[in-house]
């Protein structure tokens, strides 16, 4: 395991969540150190998005505790530390906003009552656009970007926000190989600047190059360690329930 130095970036302690009768998270525990990139692996319904929602404080767990950099999720949100990159299908790509408009939304937490942009806000937005190499596309409507550019636009929003922690939901879905490499490089740069990154994915081949650690989730954390260990076939079989299938056939 990693050496623990100071306050963890994310600490999820025996969190349990029910949706009605359905158990979504069962005493899941996860501790993540600052400036690490962690891949959250599990099949649909394994609780990945529930875990994200708990970390962002959108769902109050039935039991257990979440701390973000030692603070409650609500305090961490108000401090603007949490950046979020949504899954493609959760975004209305027809929405009449430019790339720059979307990145500017990262600044709203820093702005006054009417969210009027200051010079500093505009500079932060331009810097973020430059960092993800989207400056020349800044005036495009967001739907008129490629799959990878769309993801980078939302990463730029997190950069403009000054997020110290970023949550990415399926960042490689609908993204071509080259863009995937660009995003991987970008996220590695952000991590080396001190940003903690948690990625939910069922795209396994991209993980070893990208992540420092991986977590196997199946309502609880089955395994947490270096990606090459966690992604061993027998471990994946456990997380994706393949052994159950085989046994059923045999």
């Amino acid at each position, binding site marked *: 395991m990693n050496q623990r130095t100071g306050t963890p970036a994310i600490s999820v302690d025996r969190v349990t969540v029910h949706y009605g009768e359905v158990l979504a998270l069962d005493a899941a525990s996860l501790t993540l150190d600052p400036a690490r990139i962690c891949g959250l692996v599990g099949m649909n319904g394994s609780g990945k998005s529930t875990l994200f929602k708990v970390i962002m404080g959108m769902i109050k767990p039935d039991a257990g505790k979440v701390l973000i950099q030692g603070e409650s999720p609500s305090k961490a*949100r108000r401090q603007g530390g949490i950046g*979020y990159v949504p899954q493609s299908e*959760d975004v209305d790509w027809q929405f*009449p*906003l430019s790339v720059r408009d979307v990145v500017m*939304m*990262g600044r*709203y937490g820093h702005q006054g009552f009417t969210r009027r942009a200051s010079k500093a806000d505009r500079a932060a937005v331009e810097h973020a656009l430059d960092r993800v190499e989207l400056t020349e596309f800044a005036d495009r409507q967001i739907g008129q970007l490629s799959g990878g550019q769309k993801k980078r636009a939302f990463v730029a929003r997190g950069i403009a926000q000054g997020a110290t922690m970023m949550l990415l939901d399926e960042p490689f879905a609908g993204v071509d190989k080259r863009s995937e490499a660009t995003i991987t490089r970008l996220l590695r740069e952000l991590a080396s600047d001190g940003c903690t990154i948690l990625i939910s994915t069922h795209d396994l081949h991209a993980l070893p190059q990208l992540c420092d650690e991986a977590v196997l989730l199946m309502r609880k954390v089955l395994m947490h360690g270096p990606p090459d260990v966690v992604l061993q076939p027998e471990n994946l079989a456990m997380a994706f329930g393949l052994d159950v299938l085989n046994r059923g056939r045999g």
Partner: protein
Amino acid sequence: MDFLDFLLEPLSYDFMVRAILTTALAAVVCAVLSCWLVLIGWSLMGDAVSHAVLPGVVLAYMVGAPFALGALVFALIAVTLIGVVRNTSRVKEDAAIGIVFTSLFALGLVLISVTPSQTDLNHIIFGNLLGVSVPDLIQVLVLGVVAFAILILKRRDLTLYAFDPVHAHAIGLSPRRLGALLLGLLALTSVVALQTVGVVLVVAMLIIPGATAYLLTDRFSRMLLIAPVVSAACSIAGIYLSYYLDTASGGMVVLTQGAVFAVVYLFSPRQGLIGTRLAKARRKKVAALSV
């Protein structure tokens, strides 16, 4: 008769001046709000709230309270009931909306039938543009300006709420509160537009302008300009048409808006059914010439 006379003649009647002022004001406020409604997909909600306020307005009339107060209370009741029916039964949201708003609207009709001054209240249903009194105009003015000011001051938060409520939550804003604010403004705006076109047609003013503007631009900030300008122009044109054709004023206002939407739907250079094809053909022609 020349064009100037055509424009000025109706204005020699005070009731026409009040009608035009009220309509233009209601058109602008509704149009601004409609930009968010069409993007969030709240058209049906707009329909529901604008109908459900009827019993509130009637009760307010009966006890002599401001219309807006009654409307807000019943908008709140409607939204709460819709949420309760949706969350606690297997009935889906559109059905829940349909059940709640028609029931509340029916309650309003029943209340009107037992209230002494019936003629007055029937105007709420179909609008009574030509019968707008000075106090009516002042009420519409006050409510309209308040709703407009809040919408414009909070436009960026509302757009964020419409586009990405999860991000709004992640940076410490409350999507719940923003949603509630928008619903409250929807109730307020419904009252403003009641005078003009009546409960039944308010929803047209709350949807058509935003939808029209959405077909014309890719920038939300421009939608916020196009929608009110087009809506106000359509509404005033509708009143003139109703004056000269001697037709129902509320109906004419909505019909004009619908006609303009149809034209934009067909000929918008970005999104229009025919407009996009024309633009493509023109590009081809230019390309062929330059070869």
